[in-house]
């Protein structure tokens, strides 16, 4: 397993210390339940600053569950229960004193399905800024976010049009622009390319690689090639069916090249090889 440098340090330093090129988020998940169903167990994932961490694994192994635990999106599901700790700059985001709404402002999310609001392209991107009471030059920030999401040229002449009038790929990049407009610290992306064609996929991938200069990214993907192309670190999840139930867990995490070429676990080897042969 991947060494976890922050395991002990995290508890010691409670102040949100600025972390250099270290671990921005550290997820030490023990058990995650949906009602009585144990969905994921025992997974420890550090997310390193300015790196893309890819989550791979068979369907139903809990990749989305883990990802959505990282910004407390799962709190919206009444039956959801999280046991463990997710530290963000040293603070446990599951601490009782923490407001999940504030967590989500720092840890942004891009969903599997493009989901722009039923408003103009401009208002979509400005949404988060207005929400946070942004006082500066809105036009400038909207343009910057759209540039950052590589769709400024396509939409600059129709900022007043509906966000829903765009193509699927454009909508997804609009959603990325919306997510980065507020300049969150961490971006969680759940299969952001699954609704896109290969060309749009490539553009979003290039975008992710550019974005990691400024952000820390966690990326769920079903596409092995995509993980190889963009992820610096890869986490492979498996499903444990030994208890008569289907419980996901982290099998192995490490530098992408190593996970794909010389994994430590037999399971990883079989999965990675199976996907390619």
């Amino acid at each position, binding site marked *: 397993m991947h060494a976890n440098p922050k395991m002990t340090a995290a508890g010691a330093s409670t102040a949100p210390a600025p972390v250099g090129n270290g671990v921005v988020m550290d997820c030490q998940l023990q058990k995650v339940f949906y009602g009585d169903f144990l969905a994921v167990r025992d997974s420890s994932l550090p997310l390193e600053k300015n790196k893309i961490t890819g989550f791979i694994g068979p369907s139903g192994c809990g990749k989305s569950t883990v990802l959505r635990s990282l*910004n407390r*999106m799962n709190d*919206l599901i009444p039956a959801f229960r999280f046991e463990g700790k997710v530290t963000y700059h040293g603070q446990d985001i599951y601490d009782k004193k923490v407001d999940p*709404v*504030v*967590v*989500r*402002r720092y840890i*942004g*999310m891009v*969903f599997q*399905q493009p*989901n*722009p*609001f*039923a*408003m*103009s392209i401009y208002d979509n991107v400005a*949404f*988060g800024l207005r*929400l*946070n009471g942004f006082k500066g030059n809105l036009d400038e920030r909207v343009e910057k976010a759209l540039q950052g999401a590589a769709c400024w040229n396509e939409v600059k002449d129709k900022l007043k049009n*509906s*966000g*829903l*009038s765009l193509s699927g790929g454009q909508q997804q990049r609009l*959603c990325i622009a*919306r*997510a980065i407009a*507020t300049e969150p610290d961490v971006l969680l992306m759940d299969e952001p390319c699954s609704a896109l064609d290969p060309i749009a996929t490539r553009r979003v991938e290039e975008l992710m690689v550019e974005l990691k200069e400024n952000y820390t990214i966690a990326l769920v993907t079903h596409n092995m090639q995509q993980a190889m192309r963009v992820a610096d670190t890869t986490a492979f999840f498996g499903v444990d069916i030994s208890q008569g139930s289907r419980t996901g867990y982290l099998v192995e995490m490490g530098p992408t090249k190593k996970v794909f070429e010389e994994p430590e676990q037999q399971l990883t080897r079989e999965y990675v090889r199976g996907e390619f042969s």
Partner: protein
Amino acid sequence: MSAPDLAVESNLRALSQQADRRRPSLQRAPLEGRALRSGILTGLTWIAALLAAVPLFSVIYMLFVEGGSRLSWETLTALPPSAFDLGGGFGNAIVGTVVMVGIATLISVPLGILAAVYLAILEPDSRLADTVRFLAKVLTGFPSILAGVFVYAVMVVTMKTYSALAGGVALAVLMLPTVVLAAEQAMAMVPKKMKDAAYGMGCTRTQVILKVVLPTGASGILTGVMLAIAGAAGNSAPLLFTALFSDYYLSSLTEPTASLAILIFNFSGMPYDNQIQLAWAASLVLVLIVLAFNILARLIGRQKY
């Protein structure tokens, strides 16, 4: 014919059938069973649609024919004539209807939208929500005169006077279920992924409702409100017990108040030509007001995005 010939023939037929399968005829065959049935059914639905439209158009036609000639500035502004007088109008009834429908809208729309927020978003599966939903559905089919009797007991008796206020409340009782159900439907139709996006941006539940759900559902909500207003404006039964009528312009919300619906009801039963003509004209005005509101609502509520 000899046996080999037969074989050749069937071979040929098989070949031509193969050719048919490769190049099937795509032309219309209107007399074939399937097409014929479809044609007949389409015709029947046309006829049914026309039959359903006949009463509607004949009402509008009659209103214009009978009421159009009396429409003038005088009828729109003057007070109702007494029994044998000529001329006169129903200005006070127009004002009364607009004011009472306005009061009803002010009460029922905020209340209805708040209730719908509860039903559609806050606790959609709670027992209270189920009960409210059931009651609202029952109330949409509620005899409107009962709304009048109810408000009579609650307001007219206690305030010791018929009033525009009581009339407005009675109409609000009538409008409320329509507004609640339409607004709930409109809000429930806002896709979950849009709400998730808002939560993901760091919205509180209140912000999700105010910034995403209500704006996205606005046109549906508005349609429901308009439907409710149209229903309320034309209803005379609840006003009979609450606002009654008045021959003068409205000067206070706590006195009997004229309305178009009651004026039509009163005048159409009178044995005087002048009053009967005015009843027709008032009906036309009522329909035009409702129509104008509907068109306005459509313009405002046109789905922008």
